[in-house]
């Protein structure tokens, strides 16, 4: 089986700043490749190059076997693009938006209508099909945008931060849609800032930072590096926190980070939780708050790079910041 996307050494500069600094990337046909990274890491630039909207300054890439620079038309025949901002015509109705794309792709009038109806139904927009897109909620607009990128039944779909700014309900809906598409055999390249999203959807994850690939692998491999979950504890009396920290350290045998108010530690086995609670109770520690949560992108970055995703330029105190 061939790879849907192959890119080697992609470089892109904007006004002397390197947005991409030698990115290698492979997306397997029929799989979801998650590109994970903070704002400004080069995710969108990568997508724009692979969708022929930008020319790389260096390196080369093929999509479905076609070169993105030399055969852009061939590439465009294979792809669908859903950008970071829902790129639909606000004044046009949902139906008109989809019919327009269908007509541009060579559907005749009847086919275009049918395809629009089919897609509206699929994305639960049938009732809103006759309304201008400006009356849609954020989630509906994203769905319409996604529908628009699927009109031509692309073999490869780019989703650039499809859930950024969506409420949890809309986000879950979007995830369901992506899973559906994958089961139809569509190859997906998904960019996201959320580890959880990449974990939920992607078969392979690539972590970008400052235009470089800093990690690559399955979600499992990534989480093993960053911890599956994070245990977080707050004591009623902050004076008891050092004691609590020692107890947690003894149970999890992992280094606990404490900022004086909250202690947290990566854990890979949730079975430690009752043990921690029991021992804290034995020692008379009054627990204010105890929770298990997914590690944030920041914590993944910390684990992978030693610096946080938010302040990447300061490499001064990674050790002191979090042991």
């Amino acid at each position, binding site marked *: 089986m061939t790879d849907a996307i192959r890119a080697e050494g992609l470089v892109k500069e904007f006004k002397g700043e390197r947005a991409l600094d030698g990115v290698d990337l492979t997306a397997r046909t029929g799989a979801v490749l998650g590109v994970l990274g903070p704002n400004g890491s080069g995710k969108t630039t990568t997508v724009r190059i692979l969708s022929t909207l930008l020319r790389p300054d260096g390196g080369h890439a093929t999509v479905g076997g076609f070169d993105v620079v030399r055969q852009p038309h061939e590439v465009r025949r294979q792809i*669908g693009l859903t950008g970071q901002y829902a*790129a639909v015509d606000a004044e046009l109705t949902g139906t008109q938006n989809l019919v327009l794309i269908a007509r541009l792709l060579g559907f005749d009038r009847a086919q275009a209508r049918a395809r629009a109806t089919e897609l509206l139904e699929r994305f639960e927009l049938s009732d809103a099909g006759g309304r201008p897109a400006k009356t849609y909620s954020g989630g509906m607009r994203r769905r319409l945008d996604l529908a628009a990128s699927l009109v*031509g039944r692309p073999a490869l779909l780019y989703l650039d931060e499809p859930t950024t700014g969506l409420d949890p309900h809309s986000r879950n809906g979007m995830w369901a849609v992506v899973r559906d598409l994958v089961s139809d055999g569509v190859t997906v390249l998904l960019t996201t800032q959320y580890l959880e999203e990449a974990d939920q959807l992607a078969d392979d994850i690539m972590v970008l930072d400052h235009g470089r690939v800093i990690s690559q692998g399955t979600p499992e491999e990534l989480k093993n590096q960053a911890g599956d979950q994070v245990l977080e504890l707050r004591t009623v009396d902050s004076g008891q926190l050092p004691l609590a920290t020692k107890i947690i350290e003894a149970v999890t045998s992992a280094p606990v980070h404490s900022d004086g108010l909250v202690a947290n530690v990566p854990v890979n086995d949730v079975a430690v939780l009752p043990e921690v609670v029991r021992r804290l109770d034995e020692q008379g520690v009054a627990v204010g708050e105890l929770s298990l949560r997914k590690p944030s992108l920041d914590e993944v970055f910390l684990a992978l790079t030693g610096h946080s995703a938010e302040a990447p330029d300061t490499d001064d105190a990674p050790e002191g910041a979090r042991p």
Partner: protein
Amino acid sequence: MSTVTTRPSAASSGPVPQIPQRISPLLTVQNGLQLTWRSVLKIKANPEEVFGLMLQPVMFVTLFVFVFGQAMMGDWQTYRDFLMPGIIAQSVIFATMGTGFSLSQDVEKGIFDRFRSLPIARSAPLIGAILGDLVRYAITVVMVLVVGLAIGFRPEGGVVGVLVAAALILLFAFALCWMSAFVGMLARTPMAVQSFAMILLFPLTFGSSAFVSPDDMPGWLAPIAANNPVTHVVDAMRALMLGGDVAGPVIWTLVWSVIITAVFSPLAVWAYRRRT
């Protein structure tokens, strides 16, 4: 290297038209017309905008005729007849900045990214925007004429004269659209387009024969105004509507329209391709 992968996919089966391997001139025209349909839908979806298109000419015609009329030419009726061709031209010329404005908006909102990621002719969105705007300008022409007729304007050139005059100003507007599109693609924001266009269009229209004959302008300005392309357009329209020498100004209008289109359409396409 890998092989071609053109599997149809994504949700249930159904007809998928064969996307052409190459873009023919015919396809460019087709895509352009499909995107013209989009522009026309947008006009229909925005009745407020059409209302604005209507209101401004009503205001301009009334103000100019009744405020300046008597001072200009002794009585407002004479000035009305002189002014009507000029104010039609002015209204349409000002409306051309809308082209650059809406193109710039499409870029800002990411809509052009969608078009550019589709296997369609690259210049189609530009063609669609400009042809769609011609519809808008035709509406403007009709509106100003209606106001003029309402206050007693009765062009001697008759229906034919008025129609040919309208065709001329639309042709000239088509040429200016490319300039507007070029500005729209260069400017960073839609607002910047607007302010730049104002700076360009005010002297162009007011420094012409639209409102005052260049003969009445000071010595340094008169020759500039007399050779302003807008003066040729207005003179041609005036001759067609009211009588007078038609051939000269019409030829000049055609020449200018061709020159402006020849210069700015490649520039606009170039700027459009270069943008992001």
